[in-house]
């Protein structure tokens, strides 16, 4: 079943709720290797997104929702994740612009463009212990699920599962970007908070699709 504006709105309100619940856990992950404000920053951003979502017209399409989410995150988050996730939503929106409903191919195009936006902005690669370690496996898994003829909900579930595994896989590696890169080997054993939060938001995309 193709996913429409209701799905996009539900995705973001679920994300806002999850980030609020996970706020202190994300702060803790960030405190171990960075400046300890990742949960706080994202919570501020998604709380602003939530307010924004209350005022949508009935004829809005999913790309309108993602675009306004992007602008809110860019202007309210404060840390690196603002421009990074903001660019992800912005580029994701551009890939599905004006489509009233998203089929599997549109979802994969959206996720791919979002990931490419993060790469463009942050210049990180897989293995640098950043949110890319969640996004790239997610995009690959979504593309595989699409090729296997799976449903929209299954495609998003495959993406979320791969992102969760990717976030976990940042634990044994040395961070090469951001504040954590100053720690060198001391970053080993710590999960990247940006990869963790990206896995959370991709899981909520899947949850919204089965709701």
């Amino acid at each position: 079943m193709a996913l429409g504006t209701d799905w996009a709105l539900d995705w973001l309100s679920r994300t806002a709720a999850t980030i609020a619940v996970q706020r202190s856990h994300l702060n803790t992950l960030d405190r171990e290797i960075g400046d300890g404000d990742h949960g706080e920053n994202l919570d501020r951003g998604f709380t602003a997104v939530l307010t924004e979502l209350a005022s949508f017209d009935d004829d809005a399409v999913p790309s309108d929702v993602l675009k306004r989410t992007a602008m809110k995150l860019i202007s309210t988050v404060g840390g690196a994740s603002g421009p990074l996730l903001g660019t992800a939503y912005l580029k994701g929106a551009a890939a599905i612009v004006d489509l009233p409903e998203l089929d599997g191919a549109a979802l994969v195009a959206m996720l791919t463009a979002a990931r490419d936006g993060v790469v463009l902005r942050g210049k990180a690669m897989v293995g640098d212990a950043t949110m890319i370690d969640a996004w790239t496996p997610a995009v690959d898994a979504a593309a595989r699920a699409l090729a296997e003829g799976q449903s929209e909900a299954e495609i998003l579930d495959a993406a979320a599962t791969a992102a969760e595994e990717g976030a976990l896989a940042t634990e044994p590696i040395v961070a090469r970007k951001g504040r954590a890169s100053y720690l060198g080997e001391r970053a080993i054993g710590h999960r990247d908070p940006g990869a963790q939060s990206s896995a959370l938001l991709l899981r909520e995309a899947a949850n919204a699709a089965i709701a």
Partner: protein
Amino acid sequence: MTVGLVIVSHSAAIAGGVVELAGQMASEVTIVAAGGTDDDGIGTSFTRVGAAFESADSGDGVIVLCDLGSAVLTAETAWDFLADDARSRVRIVDAPLVEGAVTAAVAANIGGDLDAVEHAAETAWIRAEESVNSGASEAEPVVPTAIDVVTASTVLVNPSGLHARPAAEFVKLAAKFRAAVTVNGTDAKSLLRIMSLGLSVGTSVHLTAEGEDAAEAIPALVALIDSGFGE
């Protein structure tokens, strides 16, 4: 008008302090701070950075200096959102924040264009690296050989010596001449090099100018030093 500067920092206090420091040597230049989040917390604000780009741009362009990583991301994102014509004259430069801002401000103040100011900011890295390898490479003393070489010696009379403000005035004057000028063997057109000499009151200063207007440069520079820089 001159090229403008924007200082992007996670801290409003750092951005404001750098603006204050650089502004002391560049009264003609619009230098705008974009530090902290919208509620003055630690972080960077897309809105503040975007507004700073606009207020620093007189039409001659803007050089942007940033502190830690995500400040660069915020600045690049704000840059993406500029109108096409503004985007062509706003440049985010990879330079040390304090040294880069000071050298860029002086370059802008003496009328440097966007390329010149960008170059000035980038050369601040060289100075930063040299102070790490201290003493490794002293400049060769200049041996006067050609006809257009003029030398002179004088003594610093102002109480605080060749510190930031007098050094900036000195560099500004030296830069007006085409001749290559050195102070005690150091390039007189490089503010950071001059400041790093740490010349104090009573120190002997040896000036050498080499080039077609050397005979004008030396008396002017000696007169400035002997004036005590108004102190």
